[in-house]
């Protein structure tokens, strides 16, 4: 009887009563909706996002006209919002790759319903992230000097600098994420082509699907290529945030010169990325009635991942403080004190509450399965992770070695407008994505349904066997 209990309970990852046809119908009907029947809510959301995108563009225009002096930067705080936002956005992107690649390799099939969405989030977050370092350049129009190309200056990028590594890491990450996403879309474009009502729709999706015809020989290569891309993305995602952390760790500034940075940055990236996935999926599954595909099981699993990564991050904060004290260096010890009781101390303590204390609630199933709590929680973590980068960048810089060069950093209107405007870019792209592309991977959902059926049959057969019966042939079919 004990074993019987172990086999039976299984939270579904697809809601009951779904078939291949209903899965396909439900998901593909969203991008195939006629333009004139676009939901009102979508239009409102898109309009708001688009106006923030305009704010972003105006901020960039003003920046190009006047230079970085419009921000609150000074010496010593030469890295302000631009770098904070860069690290914040790129961290958010990491959850997408983790969900699509790492969970694929670990055969966590529940990922199938959130991977397309998470990958799109990755792409858009990386697009936001990539802009900030370029805007932070004194002369952004010369950004191509970062790329090694034959030039009349006779100069190369400085390949020993983590900043040059960053260029390669981010551009590789953006490119590979895009390839991964597009490969995943090919079979779904074929589905949309086959279901399209109008001729124009059929032609557009027909072109995008490259003439995909669901052939098994093609699937064979497809699965191989997809697996390889996942295997390539997995070390890539670890390397990207490690390299970002080296931007700090290779310098000698107290608060940056820490060996724990790479793993702790990677964990923080996954933590903030899952927070953003929760922030986005909780309303979307509600609005588009996708509760059968993004189930409680998914939210619970994501909360568990956040509990693990959040605890690693909290450990990182404590270790930073410990090393500051243990280093026996007056500058490191001062940095720790300045964090805890200096002028920016409220930010530090807010960070500890947001990322250290509150995530510990996720030990309890009650909180993991409480949707309103998870939504609020995910926003708290997003804020917490932004504060983390603020603490690292600003608090470390503003009181460095020489007291005569200490200064305070106060963001200006244009700092805020560029940050808030980047949400406009992110959400505009996201709204376009959920309207015009299938936001859940259709064929992978059908595949999941197939394997769930098989598993259910297997469980049924096993259950009957344990109960002392032989399975009936009808159940095997």
């Amino acid at each position, binding site marked *: 009887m004990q074993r019987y209990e172990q086999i039976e309970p299984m939270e579904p990852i697809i809601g009951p009563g779904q078939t291949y046809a209903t899965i*396909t119908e439900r998901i593909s009907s969203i991008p195939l909706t006629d333009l004139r029947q676009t939901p009102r809510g979508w239009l409102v959301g898109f309009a708001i996002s688009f106006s923030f995108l305009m704010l972003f563009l105006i901020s960039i225009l003003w920046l190009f006209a006047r230079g970085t002096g419009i921000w609150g930067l000074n010496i010593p705080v030469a890295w302000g919002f631009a770098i904070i936002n860069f690290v914040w956005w790129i961290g958010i992107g990491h959850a997408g790759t983790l969900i699509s690649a790492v969970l694929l390799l670990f055969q966590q099939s529940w990922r199938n319903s959130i991977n397309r969405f998470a990958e799109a989030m990755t792409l858009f977050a990386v697009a936001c992230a990539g802009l900030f370092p370029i805007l932070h350049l004194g002369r952004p129009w010369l950004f191509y000097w970062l790329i090694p190309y034959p030039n009349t200056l006779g100069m190369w990028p400085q390949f020993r600098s983590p900043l040059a590594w960053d260029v*390669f890491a981010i551009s*590789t990450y953006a490119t590979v994420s895009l390839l991964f996403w597009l490969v995943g879309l090919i079979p779904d474009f074929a589905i949309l082509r086959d279901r399209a009502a109008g001729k124009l729709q059929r032609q557009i999706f027909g*072109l995008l699907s490259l003439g995909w015809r669901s052939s098994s020989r093609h*699937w064979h290569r497809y699965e191989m290529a997809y697996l390889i891309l996942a295997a390539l993305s997995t070390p890539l995602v670890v390397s990207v945030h490690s390299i970002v952390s080296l931007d700090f760790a290779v310098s000698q500034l107290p608060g940056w010169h820490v060996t724990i940075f790479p793993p702790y940055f990677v964990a923080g990236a996954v933590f903030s990325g899952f927070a953003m996935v929760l922030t986005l999926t909780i309303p979307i599954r509600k609005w588009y009635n996708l509760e059968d595909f993004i189930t409680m099981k998914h939210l619970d699993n994501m909360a568990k991942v956040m509990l693990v990564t959040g605890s690693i991050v909290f450990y990182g904060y404590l270790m930073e403080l410990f090393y500051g004290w243990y280093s026996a260096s007056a500058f490191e010890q001062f940095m720790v004190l300045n964090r805890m009781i200096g002028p920016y101390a409220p930010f530090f303590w807010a960070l500890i509450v947001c990322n250290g204390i509150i995530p510990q609630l996720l030990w309890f199933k009650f909180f993991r399965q409480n949707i309103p709590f998870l939504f609020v929680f995910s926003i708290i973590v997003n804020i917490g992770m932004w504060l983390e980068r603020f603490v690292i960048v600003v608090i470390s810089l503003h009181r460095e070695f020489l007291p005569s060069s200490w200064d305070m950093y106060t963001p200006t209107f244009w700092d805020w407008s560029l940050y808030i405007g980047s949400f406009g870019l992110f959400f505009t792209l996201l709204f376009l994505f959920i309207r015009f592309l299938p936001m859940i991977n259709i064929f992978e959902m*059908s595949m999941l349904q197939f394997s769930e059926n098989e598993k259910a049959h297997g469980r049924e057969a096993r259950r009957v066997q344990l109960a002392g019966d032989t399975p009936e042939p009808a159940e095997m079919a």
Partner: protein
Amino acid sequence: MTRPAIYGLMAEFDSAEAITKAAHRAHEEGYHDMDAYTPFPIEEVIEAVSPRNTGVPFFVLIGGVLGASGGFFMQMYAMTIDYPLNIGGRPPNITGWPSFIPITFESGILLAAFAAVISLIALNGLPMPYHPVFNVPGFERASQDRFFLCIEATDTKFDRRRTREFLQSLQPRQITEVEP
């Protein structure tokens, strides 16, 4: 060689279980030039109709090796031969290699990923907007909830009448002759 009058015979099935059984039977019967069309990859069907080697990993290996070595030697050349720089005491010769590893890694991954995607598309013969199987009535459901098995006319065992009889024995929904 004369062009065969038809591309092949296409049988349509209702379920993943039926196509799996059918693909196995056709394989046992000795058919080689055949293909199944399913809404999602089914391991057992792929084993029955597709040759073992996909060719993709080989190109990925080449891409990865080219990318990594290209990245490494570019940095080596730039920082030790073309414009030697002593930065942070890292020697401007071969012993300074550790600081070149991150970019070596990234460029290796980049070219390997491109190799994976390009070889996937090229080896599959895509993009191919027209293909005979698209002529089969109801084939648009192959991407959704129907399962097709096509025995192609190029197969040595193919015979219009006997192959049709064989397919009939698998109890498909319907059998169609595929126009070339």
